[in-house]
């Protein structure tokens, strides 16, 4: 089915309180929203919370959606904003708790990998990036957004998105250089 087919109708019906229409929107977009949330936070419970919150906000703000951008782009903007806020909250919480306990990474339920050492190194390298670089990197290189979409989602210029991606990659290449021969 074409992505836009019927979607405008569903949005109108959902605005009028039609649950079935909103459920259709949910079914169409939830995988991408949850996937994005999980990529950003690496924790199933938190990704579920973010997905739920993103759709809740989307419903309550449907009046604001004017169709200037694709519904998916608008929804991913909401998702990214919720995820970033949650990450900041987790970070603040971890900072406060650090002296009281040994705190592990946010990602407690990462799927097993054939090479845990490599996985841990990749994770540490990505999470050591400043948030503004990490977000662009995850959106572009991991989730497949183009710079135009990222510019809309993060409300930055496309050039800014490109610059951040370039810096993120450079830092990651440097941090993971000893694995380069295996992946080159």
């Amino acid at each position: 089915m074409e992505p836009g087919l019927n979607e405008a109708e569903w949005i109108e019906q959902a605005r009028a309180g039609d649950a079935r229409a909103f459920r259709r929107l949910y079914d169409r977009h939830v995988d991408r929203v949850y996937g994005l949330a999980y990529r950003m936070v690496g924790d199933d419970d938190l990704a579920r919370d973010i997905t739920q919150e993103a759709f809740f906000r989307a419903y309550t703000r449907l009046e604001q959606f004017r169709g200037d951008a694709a519904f998916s782009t608008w929804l991913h903007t909401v998702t990214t904003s919720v995820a970033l806020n949650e990450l900041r909250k987790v970070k603040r919480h971890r900072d406060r708790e650090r002296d009281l306990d040994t705190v592990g990474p946010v990602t407690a339920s990462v799927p097993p990998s054939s090479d845990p050492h490599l996985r841990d190194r990749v994770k540490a390298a990505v999470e050591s990036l400043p948030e503004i670089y990490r977000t662009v990197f995850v959106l572009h290189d991991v989730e497949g957004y183009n710079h135009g979409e990222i510019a809309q989602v993060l409300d930055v210029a496309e050039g800014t998105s490109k610059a951040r991606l370039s810096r993120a990659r450079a830092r990651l290449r440097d941090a993971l250089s000893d694995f380069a021969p295996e992946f080159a």
Partner: protein
Amino acid sequence: MTDDARDWVTDMVREHYNAPPATPREEIWARLEERLEPLMEEGRRSGDGDAEVTPLRPRPTRAPGTRARVGWMALAATAVLAAGVGIGRWSRGAVPGAGPSLAGLVEERPTVERTRVVKANRAAAVEHLSRTEPLLTLVKSDVARGTVDAEVGEWAGELLGQTRFLLDSGLPMDPEVVSLLEDLELVLFQATLVASGQVDGQRARQEMELLQEGLLDRNVLPRIQAVIPTAGPGFAGS
């Protein structure tokens, strides 16, 4: 798909960084449904009466006399959620021939109900204010250094949008909270402006002075700390 050539580091991260499991779509929907039901109910009541819509669940039959009370509880709870996410849909007043709107009910019963609504909206505003406290602490620290970090500025920009949304919602709130939100809006705007680098020289110094004045002279941070509960914020909107 991408604008740039990808390389080995991209492949490595795609394979090893937070690969998502299958989406637990029904579990998420079940929780979402609980939160959406009151809002959708309101949407159906205030919308086009001829429209055919499907409710989330069959509507329970209420005993005579309880409808108004239950309706009010739902309205109050929904007002918290709605204000919490920055929506002011009920503030636009009643649609002719439709069910009661928040504004309409407030006009009809200007004492007890209005007090309840104001309290509910205050709770939503306080939830928002509690999210601004850590940011303002960072801004205050940055101002003392004579600069505002770009990342702090971006965060301030997000909170600025939410603050304006609350202010523009038209939902009844007590004057103390409105005044605090207005002062907060100014501080967040100046923090965003200074951090953005869009102003420089004399203008930048003026904006920094205004920012400092807003934080110190208007006591925005202590006033926020005075109204938020000590337990801190919960998950947004929950």
